[in-house]
């Protein structure tokens, strides 16, 4: 399998704090890869470096073999990376379908003049955009909700919409930042199925930040564990679960010495 994204010695500092320290991660194509770690371990900071919202101070991020360093976020999205947010960030005062259409916009080309004059090209594009967005709503299970204001959706549906919006950009790599946060067990199980479907049906590679161990252990091919900005372990879910460094990071130093084996 080929490597889709590789981070090499990525370092991000905020003043005196090193949020991400010489991180090396390789994401295999068509895999589900999780990043876990205690709060403040630098997981979301790493996401922000990959998507261009932060400029990392050192190191490089390669996507399909090309460096992304210094690119604007919109450019990186067009290269094929999409993301969702830890705290859902929808375009609240736009309808559900419009949210998806915004995600779809980078596939459209018509501009100011096309819009004002309603050229044939623009009309066809709009029609296509609506159709594609409808399909996407169907895919994420929001058919029939398209004309709702997105802020009026229930919580679980907002998560789905956020993923649908990200998918509308047709990414090769999807970054999900704690998608199971605030979900009950049934919703969590649905989400796991959904993530697997993404890979199976759309062939998308998924990078996941998650605290929900059931999700991480249930669907990940590979798990990277971070603590204090550094990678402390990496491996299959089973390997990571038994790694003393990981147990230490989560439960404190005493845990490995005195805890049950």
């Amino acid at each position, binding site marked *: 399998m080929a490597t889709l994204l590789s981070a090499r010695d990525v370092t991000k500092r905020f003043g005196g704090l090193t949020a991400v320290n010489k991180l090396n991660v390789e994401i295999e194509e068509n895999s589900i890869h999780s990043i876990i770690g205690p709060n403040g371990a630098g997981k979301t900071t790493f996401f922000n470096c990959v*998507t261009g*919202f932060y400029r990392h101070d050192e190191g490089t991020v390669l996507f399909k073999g090309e460096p992304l360093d210094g690119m*604007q*976020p*919109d450019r990186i*999205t*067009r290269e094929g990376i*999409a*993301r969702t*947010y830890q705290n859902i*960030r*929808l*375009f*609240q*005062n*736009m*309808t*559900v*379908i*419009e949210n998806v*259409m*915004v*995600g779809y*916009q*980078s596939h*459209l080309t*018509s*501009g*100011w003049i*096309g*819009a*004002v004059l*309603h050229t044939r090209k*623009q*009309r066809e*594009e*709009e*029609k296509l*955009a*609506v159709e594609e*967005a*409808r399909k996407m*709503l169907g895919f994420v299970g929001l058919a*029939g*909700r*398209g*004309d709702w*204001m997105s802020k009026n959706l229930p919580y679980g549906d907002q998560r789905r919409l956020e993923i649908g*919006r990200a998918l509308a*950009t047709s990414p090769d790599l999807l970054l999900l930042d704690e998608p199971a946060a605030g979900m009950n067990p049934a919703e969590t199980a649905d989400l796991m199925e959904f993530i697997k479907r993404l890979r199976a049906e759309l062939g998308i590679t998924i990078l996941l930040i998650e605290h929900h161990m059931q999700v991480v252990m249930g669907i990940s091919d590979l798990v990277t564990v971070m603590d204090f900005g550094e990678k402390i372990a990496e491996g299959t879910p089973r390997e990571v679960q038994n790694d003393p460094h990981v147990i230490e990071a989560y439960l404190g130093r005493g845990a490995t010495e005195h805890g049950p084996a």
Partner: protein
Amino acid sequence: MNQSSKFSWMTPVTTGLIGGIVALFLCLVGIVEASLNRFVITGILTTGQVFLLAVYAIFVVQAANKATPRFSEERSPLRILASGAIAGLIISIVLAVFVLIGQQIDLRGVFIHATPALYDLLTFGLGVPQGIFVLLGFGILMGILFAVLVLLPKALRKSIGVGLIAVPLLSVTYSALFAGRGLRLPVAIAVFLIAAVAIYLWDRYEKPVRKRTQSLPSGQQRSLRIGVWILAGLFVLALPLLGSYPSEVLVITGIFVLMGLGLNIVVGYAGLLDLGYVAFFAIGAYVMAIFTSPEITWFPITTSFWIALPFAVLTAMLAGAILGIPVLNMRGDYLAIVTLGFGEIIRLIALSDWLKPLIGGSNGITQIPKPTAFGLAFDNPQKLYYIVVIGCVIAAFIATRLKYSRLGRNWMAIREDEDVAQAMGIDLVRNKLLAFATGAALSGLAGAIFASKLTSIYPHSFNLLVSINVLAVIIVGGLGSIPGVIIGAVALVGLPELLREFAEYRLLVYGAVLVFMMLRRPEGLLPEARRKLELHEMSPDVAE
């Protein structure tokens, strides 16, 4: 039971006290006195009295509404009536105390509007003490009357309310336009009845009628829609028949509609708070002046309105894009301050001695010709009105088309969450500059028309207040809403233009209206509506 669900007899008292203070305030700033001879109903009711009645109405209704505690089902009519009566009485007591004090001490040294005429009005011309008793009785009567309104079923309440508002509005408009002395009593009653019945019927039959039209075949629906548009168009085209002064008001309103439509793109769609919008208006006006005024000798071309117009629009557009570049990374309040500065810079440059040889400094530029077309001079407001209407129609067309396009959605996404918008692949630089440039172009168009309407321009016409006015227009109308801009301009520019003798209170009313709107209807008079795209058949624009 939580606290807010308890009822206290102090509530109507405090509500009445606030009402009394408001009424007193209106008296002391002179609104009541200024309108002694301005009749709403000829010989019966003056504008000032209407203002006082409105205070009674607003606060009595408020008190009566509070008589039914929140989360409580029980509605006690007696308590509602009593609350209303108490509030009304308290308002009257405040006014009565004021009259009594005024009789003893001469307040005019401080409050120049505390005149005998005012006391006379408040005591119904009966003097102290009889008038005081009448005033108190009047307060109780008003309290009970308006509280009864609260008790009525909703449909009836609404139609009576609208009827009561329609009479003074129509009367004031009529008097201003035709130098009338208010509506005669039978006419006023007729207006009240027509408005009330119309609203009642509208509420009752609007939905079924709408449903029926929606079930019509799409061809018929289309012709119906075209018919409505033609009727509306004819109405708009017929407006100048009202005469010269009304047309003048319409032209000014139209110029604000034009600016509002432009600013609505920047603030309403893209969420970029621009307080220096007047700059582009000024640039449009100055370019028009430089191109057309024979006074400007250094500029090689002296041409007509129509040739200068595209240059005015393009220059403003360019200026919009140029202003956009330094503020690309600014958000919210920072952006507001920088654009504010830009607006002032343009005005100060126009005023400066430095450019005085070129654009006249504080003397401005005069002798700007009126537009002509096909040998026809647009030399009076009635004719100019049509140019403004054409401008507004083009602007509204562009704004609508852009709103429901990829660009419009991108703008709204930027308004909602700039970071996420960028993460959706939206090029912020390009999209923001397009918003600034489009808005500026429409402002430039408005400025160009403004210049040739006045035939002379001065830097002081382009002050911060214009930017604030336009912003107020779109906020009151409903941010992002195109019909809202028109309603907002009529309400905040057209109406005050008609109420000339209240000109000095214009900002006072502005402030009050804005505060009220932000508290009670933050989404504006005609809020932005989103088009249904999923379940509804495709909108006519997208379908075809």
